[in-house]
């Protein structure tokens, strides 16, 4: 019975996908130009964002980015579900030998600069290469360094979950604000400013900061879970 329900759902999905694809005029000459010119000109002239990739990822294809962040969240959750044998009963951190004092004091100096670099990368996501995902990953590497160096350095799991949830919720709220004020999800609702300014591109900068926090929290959670895996 279940099989037939799945087959029926797949058939319905396939029908609608087919009808969407039939709407696209594949092979016709105007399709050869594609949407690239529209994206490039509108990211520069309408959104005033100098990094066209960011404009596409966060604004024109913002819904996909929300999906990506959700996939990351789900994989982090599944990973901690697999690795935690019993919840709140985490094993010892597997460590061969303690880090030397040079590494200890060096890590203390490196950690703020790594975090600063990560924050710089995700704040300037709409101006330079990089963005929320990259900046979040850089911040997570800083935490990895601290976790590897200091045996008793710990990250509050509740705080990570809190940061992650608030960032995700604000992302959706900004998207809904676009829906209610401008008519489509994740539409820009803020003034766009000048090209190449830090405060340009409307909601794009804010969304990338949120994505950065969310990715950083998720990756730190994954790293923490792996380091505390019970043997």
């Amino acid at each position, binding site marked *: 019975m279940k099989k037939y329900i799945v087959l029926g759902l797949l058939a319905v999905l396939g029908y609608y996908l087919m009808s969407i694809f039939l709407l696209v005029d594949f092979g016709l000459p105007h399709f050869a130009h594609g949407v690239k010119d529209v994206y490039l000109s509108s990211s520069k002239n309408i959104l005033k964002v100098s990094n066209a990739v960011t404009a596409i990822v966060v604004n024109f294809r913002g819904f996909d980015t929300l999906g990506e962040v959700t996939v990351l969240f789900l994989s982090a959750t599944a990973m901690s579900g697999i690795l935690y044998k019993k919840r709140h009963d985490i094993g010892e951190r597997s460590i*061969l*030998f303690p*880090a*030397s004092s*040079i*590494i200890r004091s*060096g890590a203390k*100096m*490196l950690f703020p*600069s790594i975090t600063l670099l990560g924050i710089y990368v995700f704040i300037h996501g709409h101006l330079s290469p990089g963005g929320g995902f990259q900046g979040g990953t850089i911040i997570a590497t800083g935490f990895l360094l601290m976790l590897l160096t200091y045996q008793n350095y710990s990250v509050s799991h509740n705080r990570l979950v809190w940061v992650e949830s608030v960032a995700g919720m604000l992302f959706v709220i900004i998207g809904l604000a676009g829906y209610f004020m401008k008519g489509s999800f994740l539409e820009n609702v803020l003034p766009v400013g000048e090209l190449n300014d830090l405060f340009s591109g409307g909601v794009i900068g804010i969304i990338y900061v949120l994505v950065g926090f969310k990715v950083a929290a998720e990756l730190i959670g994954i790293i923490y879970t792996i380091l505390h895996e019970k043997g």
Partner: protein
Amino acid sequence: MSIMEIIGSFLVIVGSIFLFLGALGIYRMPDLYSRLQAGTKATTLGAMSVILGVGFWEPDWFLKLLVLVVFIGYSNPLSSHAMARAMFKKKIFPWTKEGGVDAYKEVIEPTGEKQES
């Protein structure tokens, strides 16, 4: 060509020579310790020199590049120290010629057990 540009070009050339020697060292050296030395010492100086040379070409960026130089100056030796210490703790012996002196092996091998240091 102004004097700043000449200094900058000189620094960039010196830096690229050192980076090349570092790469050559990683290819040519016999064991992990000497490869690590080639891969970090030479490239630290090479990268610093190239970055400072660019700073002489573009004086507006000099402060930013100075921050980068400081960052490389303390992160690169740190990582090489961590790697060398890990290799030492994992009992990877340095390469020696026939009959060469290897103090590390002399400490480790008589007992055959892990020595705490």
